[in-house]
């Protein structure tokens, strides 16, 4: 690589660290046949260019002076690089990706469908319930149910338990009932009987 080419290569590195190289220029930079010495020089130049930027921004620090690119380059030179293994790993990765894409597509298709089905079911259930509530036939109740009759009608329809008893017998039974349930009465003095007062009045003539 002559001086002119070397200068062009360094200019490309200058543009590269600013993300101002296009794909073709990257390819040409990678395609250049450079010696190990030139590679080291390029590493140093790039580090110094970064350093210049840091200094101009007032961000120069110890970290700005770290340059391990040559060491990394050397370490990777001795790295056992199995291209076949690498290609297989990439291929497996791509296959996994394509399979995942299918399931992802299936999931993306099924998820809104299930959502719509659930929403439709809820809507149908609500419509049916409302229609049933508003329908006149909904007044029909089960035989054992008291139905929608008002409380007054229930009382009116109620038949006496035993009509055959006379009023005296009924009173006696009632007294017996009260006596037997006196312990549940709120007032112990009257033994559960409803107190009553007999008021006697005299009219003065």
């Amino acid at each position, binding site marked *: 690589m002559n001086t002119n080419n070397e200068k062009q290569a360094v200019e490309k590195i200058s543009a590269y660290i600013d993300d101002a190289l296009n794909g073709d220029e990257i390819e040409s930079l990678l395609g250049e046949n450079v010696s190990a010495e030139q590679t080291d020089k390029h590493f140093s130049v790039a580090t110094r260019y970064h350093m210049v930027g840091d200094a101009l921004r007032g961000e120069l620090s110890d970290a700005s002076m770290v340059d*391990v690119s040559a060491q990394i380059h050397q370490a990777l030179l001795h790295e056992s690089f199995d*291209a076949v293994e690498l290609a297989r790993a990439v291929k497996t990765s791509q296959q996994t990706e394509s399979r995942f894409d299918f399931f992802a597509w299936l999931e993306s298709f099924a998820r809104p469908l299930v959502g719509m089905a659930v929403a439709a079911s809820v809507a149908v259930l609500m419509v049916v319930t409302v229609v049933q509530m508003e329908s006149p036939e909904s007044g029909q109740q089960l035989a054992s149910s008291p139905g929608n009759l008002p409380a007054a009608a229930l009382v009116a329809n109620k038949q006496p338990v035993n009509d055959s008893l006379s009023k005296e017998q009924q009173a006696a039974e009632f007294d017996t009932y009260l006596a037997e349930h006196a312990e549940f009465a709120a007032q112990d003095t009257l033994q559960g009987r409803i107190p009553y007062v007999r008021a006697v009045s005299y009219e003065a003539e």
Partner: protein
Amino acid sequence: MGNERSIDQALVERVQQGDKKAFDLLVLKYQLRVSKLVARFLRNPSDVPDVVQDTFIKAYRALPNFRGDSAFYTWIYRIAINTAKNHLVSMSRKSPANSIDVQDAEDYGASDWLKEYATPERKVLADEIQVNINQAVSQLPPDLREAIMLREMEGLSYEDIATTMDCPIGTVRSRIFRAREAIDEKLEPLLDEYSHNVGST
């Protein structure tokens, strides 16, 4: 930079096909950013180069599994953080109290511990570098100085600089390169002298 991710992905694919030179380019581009990230985790600045080196070697070995779902720099930053944490554990030190995530670390400014230097000589060297670069920039022709300042200080893309300076992108690229080249003429001897002194001691 809009094409950063596509360029990185193209380089990654080249590496996956066995091109180590493509990995060299990735190292060139991200070495400084990874170094700064790692320096935020490690208390001892002299440990930074080893951890950065480990990070890139681990990344190279893991590249067959990189599918490009995330950007390359996000991926390698995660490796760098894990490597730094593992280093702290192996050195039986406590990690920094504040947990730093990738994005947080990117957003952080230069903090005090980042300003620590491995040796007093490195601190002196950094001061000298700063002075020399400032002098070199002040001696640049105006068009070169403007181009490099817009790029490095304002962070403008080449397209934006071309619009600002009303010149073709190729001219911007050339001016920035010539500015760097001129500054580097002052910087390189300084670093060589430091390396020579360190080597001799």
